[in-house]
């Protein structure tokens, strides 16, 4: 029997040393791109039956239930994240449950790379490549936001104050990684944003 071999987008990269925040790849995440009309009660109900969580309607928010986390992408689009091994089955359940309802569920678990930043200065590192104001108080845990990061498109997900995930398209993963380890290079900390001043900055 021909066995399948798995290779994550950043498999060729060593985890980063010499950086002032911890940077690593999250390689086993399942992702489902879900489209539908939030105004369509049948759609919302059918999805909740499968995911056991209401799709977040508020822009830039997320909702979590067990190992499923749903990220708001647009007014009619969500990214359902789950353990990778569940993604295909979940996609099929959704598709089945949404028969006859205007919607589209696609398993996109392989489309993006996920990079996790952890450390007091994680937000500072992101802001070296993004115009978002991660210090303005609105980026509480649970916040998600698409952004322009360095030269590429990325999806920002705040897990905790000091834990951030960045989703980038697979083909750009190596570039994003390169940028992050340079931006977080030891010695390039931004004195002005010293952690003790973080809350205010």
């Amino acid at each position, binding site marked *: *029997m*021909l*066995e*399948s*071999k*798995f*290779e*994550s*987008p950043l498999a*060729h990269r060593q985890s980063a040393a010499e950086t002032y925040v911890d940077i690593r790849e999250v390689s086993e995440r399942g992702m489902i*791109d879900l*489209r539908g009309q939030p105004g369509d009660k049948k759609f919302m109900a059918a999805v909740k039956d499968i995911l056991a969580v209401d799709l977040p309607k508020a822009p830039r928010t997320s909702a979590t239930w067990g190992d499923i986390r749903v990220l708001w992408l647009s007014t*009619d689009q969500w990214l359902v994240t789950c353990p990778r091994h569940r993604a*295909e089955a979940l996609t099929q359940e959704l598709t089945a449950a949404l028969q006859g309802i*205007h*919607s*589209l569920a*696609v*398993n*996109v*678990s*392989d*489309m*993006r790379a996920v990079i996790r930043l952890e450390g007091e200065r994680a937000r500072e590192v992101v*802001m*070296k*490549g*993004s*115009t*978002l*104001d991660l*210090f*303005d108080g609105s980026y509480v845990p649970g916040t998600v936001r698409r952004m322009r990061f*360095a*030269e*590429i498109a990325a999806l920002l997900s705040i897990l905790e104050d000091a834990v951030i995930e960045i989703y980038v*398209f*697979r*083909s*750009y*993963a*190596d*570039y994003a990684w*390169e*940028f992050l380890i*340079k*931006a977080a*290079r*030891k*010695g*390039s900390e*931004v004195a*002005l*944003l010293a952690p003790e*001043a973080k*809350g*205010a*900055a």
Partner: protein
Amino acid sequence: MSGKPYRLPAGGSCIDRAKSISFSFDGKSLQGFAGDTVASAVLASGQRLFGRSFKYHRPRGVVGLGSEEMNALVGVGVGARHEPNLRATQVELYNGLAAVSQNRWPSLSFDIGSVNNKLSRFFPGGFYYKTFMWPKSFWKHVYEPFIRRAAGLGKAPEERDPDSYEHMHIHADVLIVGGGIAGLTAAEAAAASGVKVLLVDENPVLGGIADLSAGKIGDTTPAAYAASAEARLRGLSNVHILTRTTVVGHFHHNYLMAFERVGDHDPALLAAGAPRHRLWKIRAGQVILASGALERPLAFANNDRPGIMLASAVRALVERYGVAPGKNGVVFTNNDDAYLTALVLKQAGVGVRVADSRARPDGALVQQARAAGIEVNAASVISAVEGSHGVKAVKIAAYRKGQGRVITETRVDCDFVAMSGGWNPALHLWCHNGGKIKFDDAIASFRPNTHGDAIAAIGAANGTMNLAETMNEAVAAGEAAARAVNGKAKASKIKLPAIDEPQRGALEPLWFAPATGGYNEGNKHFIDFQNDVTAADLELAQREGYESVEHTKRYTTFGMATDQGKTSNINGLGVLSEATGKSIPEIGITTYRPPYTPYSFGSIAGALTGKLFLPVRRTPIFQWHTERGAVFEPVGQWRRAYTYPGAGEDKHAAINREILGVRNKVGLLDASTLGKIEIKGPDAAEFLDRMYTNTFSTLKVGKCRYGLMMNELGFLTDDGVTVRLADDHYLMHTTSGGADRISAWLEEWLQTEWTHYKVFVTPVTEQWAQFAIAGPRAREVLQKLESDFDVSNEGFPHMSFKTGRLGAYPVRIFRISFSGEQSYEVATPANLGRGLWDAILDAGREYGIEPYGTEALHVLRAEKGYIVIGDETDGTVTPFDVGLDGLVSKKKADFIGKRSLEQSYLKGPNRKQLVGLLTEDPQEVLPDGAYAVREVKDKPPMEMIGQVTSTYMSPTLGRSIAMALIENGKARMGEVISFPLEGGKVVKAKITDTVFYDKDGGRISA
């Protein structure tokens, strides 16, 4: 004085006499103290001469205090770390610093270029527009090379920059530019209500010129007060302070650039990993400009001699660095402020007297000076300066306002001059984004008026030249800014201490000091020092009709030096005003352009150099391609394998091998970059009929169809195979370069034109790794891969689609072909891609499978006459032009681009049409893009009738083939046309149809 004749025995608030620093200037090793600048340390050593001027190569020394310095420009650092044109007054000393003077040859003290000075009479402003025209060829070959060598300032480094740079984005409620008394006070006022305050200052230390100011704030000196204010601010968590950072530009919507010199002053920081410069991109709610003012020089004969400095700079030299500007000097002024300098000099034991152009100076400082025994000559100006590399003496002449000639003058021995013509508010940032300004006679300068943005100016930057008003403005502006941010009107929390400062007499503008000799004959009153623009040049420009101040500026280059007119601007307007009898406001002022001071290109590029310059997109097979030694080609941002040369094999041979492999056995192509878009909804079919020139509503489920897309102009923009997954569900393929563009294009039409359509569009390009298995033995390879579906020709015919598994690999598989061979495109989730790729190669080994690259693919498709968007089309080509009439629906009422096809030129006669070409000599390959002509002439011009779009040596056919767009090509089958090449060679080729191989298409469906 330990080899430092001008270092005073005591004093110097900025230097640490305990820390001695060694550095070099023009190779000569010198000593300074920690806290010194190159300017202060070199002056301390007794050296006056720093550089040569731009046009006349006149000897020049330090004039200013900081970033406004226009003369003392030095190159700092060696080799790849050399940086030219730095202001010596800003360069902080560190051990081992190596500075060099510029624009001189062979040496600073003896400079051949200074002959220009002797001939200066023949080089008035704009002289080069009047000559150097004969003979015609001489400009490029004789005059210009000479001018180019003479011009320019410092030298560029010769190697790549080893240092790193970065950007940082920050948002502030209130940005305060300038950390002097005004800025510090405004910051306290704003911060009191809890808003986020960012305070940015150009210098290493805050305080502005508090340390050079007179008076008392409460019971302390201005300097002490500034220090205490800074301490209070540093204690607040909502205030951030950036030093060594210049706000260089103000742009739309309160977007500002700030240039931080992180490591320039300390190589150790760079070694530890710090970026050399950091560019701050600031978005500010409110901006408060507390950027202070710049002192004006005075225009008198030979006012550019080394040793002639601004009064404030002289003061700073003594107070901050404990350096005496000389032994015995003259303060030349038209205002009271310079008397502070006289007093400081006197106290430091330096000889000093004052020449004041005003008839009756009598302000408090004037009286103090007199009381201190300083000789003050009222109604006097300097009419001459003796000495060239330094000041030996000056002549002081009696002066009455409006008097042009010198009547009596006395010679005074001295070795330096401290001049002050008053102060100009630093308006630059105010004006970058269109702030209005107004002229104020009290300061004889412009000051801020109105602005469309949320920005305010305070203190000297606002033309307010005394402490008390400055601090009141600062509190008001700080509190107003805070209110504007948080909406809350709060009672003022700031209690300002009592302020006691000397009452000042009025300034009287002096734009031109009469000189020994006839009016303006041979004397050089420098206005723009660095560019050697004199008062006479400005008057000449007026005389010649360059009346607009912008004309004068461009004709004489006044204000265009590296200081961008900081010290020369208003003085120039003063001269123009006197020359024309117009008021300064009537003359107007040239536009202030960003940046405030020059900043490094490195900082603008930030981290995005080398590997980060632009992203390279990698397919899941990228590593394998690299290890296999593939030659890559960029396709959009993708890197695709172009070909895979074996050991000792050249590209050409490799490509031929790959082509024959596909034709005779089987090949494997990484096609993962192809755009993939899922389109689903009840209106999906109708929507696709709008997007494509051909029809997709009639496509059967499970079947594939090749589609063409045009833009609204009727020109081809993309093509690809689309499969119908279900009645309401399609999977579209686009070109690799078009993937993002087309999905955005589909979304745009859905959202903006056919808003009632129920269709979802989800791009999935990167979800899939996709490979083409092509060649007569492709099916055998597939069979070997444990497929769980029928792969027989009948069960899986050409242009059909299946989902299933190959072993454990989930796949989508398309029976489509771009090579003309039996071909299957297999897609599997990207993270499994590498695994399946290896498995296919294993399975195919016994059938002789070989990977093939994009170039082989291009030849294969050309042999079949398939077009490539971007090769056969160039944005001006319609489907009819490339002979795909059959794919343009006649039934559909409307689809994108349809109507434009009816415009007269697009359906008109003599369109270029796609044809095949066979050269008369089968071994002759037409060059890319070669043009055919209607008639070969012995020399150009020749009338062109079309061009080659694709051209290859076909290993399959053993001869060259080409496709071309030729005027009326379809009507010319069999005609032989001529392609005149370089060197007179003419290639002849016969027009054929575009299918060169397997015309009946039997192989595809075999």
